[in-house]
């Protein structure tokens, strides 16, 4: 390696010279709008086509649910295209799989960013928190990153409904208002380490303070599949209810163990915590007896909402044998939200990534035909777009195992604010 420094120094010098010769710091004059119509266009838009991206997890832990969402999303845009598309253009979806690996997510984002106008979804906590800041720099709309409050810090992010903290605050409110939990009692919060769990805990703590109850917190990780120790600790603390911000596995284990220990208390799971296949586990009885689910998005079984019906029908047609669940309405509404933003950008004549983000920031009352609570307000940056959530009860009779009870917006959910 004796000559290497000399060689590399030489070549570095040569290239520096070349570079200086070819260097320029003056930007060329502004790029001309490419559209034949009066719309300015940018990345991902041609005269006939709009490309949107989806960074999802088709080979990692969320593969199966993600697949449902991909199917539904494809079906949605196919339908939109059949109806004439957006801004006179067909919409195509570029789906890439990051496998829940942040490094892959970032690299794939780099590869897709020049060719898409917006990202309908970046699935997963670590993956979306790696992509969001990059997308913010590039002014690219990002939807579907889940409901963690930390994502609200990014003005380019569109949260599909109430954030986790608002969900958890509502959960506490609901326990006190409807499930007979008395003021002064204790409520357990079992949560994943991370922004999803942490945000939920923050909301629950806020509500506890407002409503005069004690919080007993138990942190777990996704590897904790046996919640005996946590359940015992909760039972020991004599909790009157439990808020769970985890995954289906933990829901079943916690409900089962609590019930077996004779703790007959309501358990409310946050958004993605319920999965219909839980009803085949030994914990099914316990879940049917005590388990509730709070979701930002309408559960699958909601005959009153035309949007949900449209979503379900679309999915049933696209994949008759597919697994049904809350992913179906979620994917539909994410696509719907993006479509509204695209329409907004089209109307304001700026069909560029920046234009889509701007359209998002101006939408202060978005309706989704019952898929999400009405009147979503994205103009108040940094705050949850709504305080209303769906509350359902686990039920063996309802499709996808959740029977919708109500839409609620509790007092402590309404008084919650980020950064406060």
């Amino acid at each position, binding site marked *: *390696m004796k000559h290497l420094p000399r060689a590399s120094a030489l*070549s570095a010098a040569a290239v520096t010279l070349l570079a200086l010769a070819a260097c320029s710091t003056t930007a060329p004059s502004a790029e001309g709008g490419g559209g034949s119509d009066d719309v300015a266009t940018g990345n991902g838009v041609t005269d006939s086509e709009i490309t949107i991206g989806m960074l999802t997890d*088709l*080979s990692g832990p969320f593969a199966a649910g993600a*697949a449902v969402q991909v199917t539904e999303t494809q079906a949605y845009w196919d339908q939109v295209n059949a109806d004439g598309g957006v801004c006179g253009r067909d919409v195509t979806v570029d*789906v890439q*799989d990051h496998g829940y690996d942040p*490094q892959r997510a970032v690299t794939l984002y780099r590869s897709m960013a020049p060719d898409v106008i917006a990202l309908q979804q970046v699935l997963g906590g670590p993956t979306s928190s790696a992509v969001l800041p990059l997308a913010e720099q590039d002014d690219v709309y990002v939807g579907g990153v889940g409901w963690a409050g930390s994502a609200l810090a990014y003005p380019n992010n569109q949260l599909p409904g109430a954030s986790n903290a608002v969900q958890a605050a509502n959960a506490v409110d609901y326990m006190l208002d409807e499930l007979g939990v008395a003021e002064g009692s204790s409520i357990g919060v079992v949560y994943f380490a991370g922004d999803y769990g942490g945000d939920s805990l923050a909301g629950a703590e806020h509500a506890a303070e407002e409503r005069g109850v004690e919080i007993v917190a138990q942190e777990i990780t996704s590897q904790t599949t046996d919640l005996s120790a946590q359940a015992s600790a909760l039972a020991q603390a004599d909790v009157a209810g439990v808020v769970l911000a985890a995954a289906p596995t933990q829901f079943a284990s916690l409900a089962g163990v609590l019930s077996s220990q004779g703790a007959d208390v309501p358990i409310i799971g946050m958004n993605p915590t319920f999965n219909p296949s839980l009803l085949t586990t030994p914990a099914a009885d316990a879940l049917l007896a005590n388990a509730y689910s709070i979701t930002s998005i309408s559960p699958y079984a909601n005959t009153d909402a035309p949007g949900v019906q449209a979503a379900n029908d679309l999915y049933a047609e696209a994949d008759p044998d597919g697994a049904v669940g809350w992913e179906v309405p979620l994917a539909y509404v994410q696509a719907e939200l993006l479509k509204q933003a695209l329409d907004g950008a089209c109307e304001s004549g700026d069909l560029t990534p920046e234009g889509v983000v701007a359209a998002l920031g101006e939408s202060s009352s978005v309706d989704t035909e019952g898929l999400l609570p009405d009147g979503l307000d994205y103009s108040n940056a940094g705050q949850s777009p709504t305080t209303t959530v769906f509350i359902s009860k686990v039920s063996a009779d309802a499709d996808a195992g959740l029977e919708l009870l109500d839409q609620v917006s509790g007092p402590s959910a309404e008084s919650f604010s980020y950064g406060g």
Partner: protein
Amino acid sequence: MSELPRKAGGAVLVLVALALPLVLSDFWLQTGLFVMAAAIGAVGLTLLVGVAGQLSLGHAAFAAIGAYVYAYTTGETTTSVTGLGLPPVLGLVLAVGVAALVGAAFSPVAGRLRGIYLGLATLGLVFVVRHLLVNLSDWTGGFTGRSVESFALGGFSFSNRDPDYLAVAGVEFEGLHRLWYLFLVLAVAACWLASNLRAGRTGRAWANVRDSETAAAAMGVGVAQVKASAFVVSSGYAGLAGAMLALAYGRVAPDVFGLTASVDFLVMIVLGGLGSVTGAVVGALFVTALPLVLAQYSSALPFLAAPGSGGLDPSTASRIVYGLAIIAVLVFLRGGLAGAARRLRQRTSTPAAPPAPRTPDDGDRPVAVTTPRSKETTR
């Protein structure tokens, strides 16, 4: 000697690497950044494991320390996290320094344990560091992590701004392009330093301690001190790699530095061939780029099912290919990729004179997996 073509080859490679940003897309640039960061970490680890013979499964812990030290020292204090706001260059130096110091602090442990015991103790280190990262949230931003200040040198920023527009030969040089050159300089320097170390007094002492602590001590090598120096150097490399990863991501989070990252570093150096600097770089390229490239391009493969259709989709296929590639290299290539390359070179160059030495037949012959035993025969 075969040195000259090798150097010429190296120089050509460096030149190509210098020119690449002119033609590569963002995807490849980003991949390149990750590869170069990983390569530096792998080079550091191969010095420790391959040259000095100390198994470490805790490399990611030191990388995490480097990444967070950089993020903390260069970052500004915000509502959620604190930061020192130091100049990025100083931050980079501190990242290396602090990681090396932690390595020094851990080296007495390394002196007490050997082989797999040491490996698993360092494995524990990964979990401990992760726990600290999650809990010291004032400094680290907790589970979600914190954003990372972009690198800057004398007013020139390695990001999309300052200068806002910079073009070379008509190609706009954005943050990725600029970082590419920063990383390239660091990577070449790191490899050069590692090769020097390996070839010099320090490297000989490391190799001797690996081969036989007794013999090394008999030659006047202070075993404990030499082992510690290997740990310190390797940790410093890991710290630099971590800081570079942080720059490549633009943010740091504990998830990036988990067990998988540690294991990946180890896979890199074993695939590349233990103790070989070039091997470590090639291993880093293989381990880092293969999954990314497979994820990006496997959809072009005809026999795979569409994503989400329930069949063997491209990503699953790419992960399986990755696993199979590891298995294949280990089963078929002795000494990893570097060993295979060495044999190939030997075959193409003049064959070495057939050696005909004898061996004393008392004592054990080199042993198989079934009977590994230490080289030293003490009674």
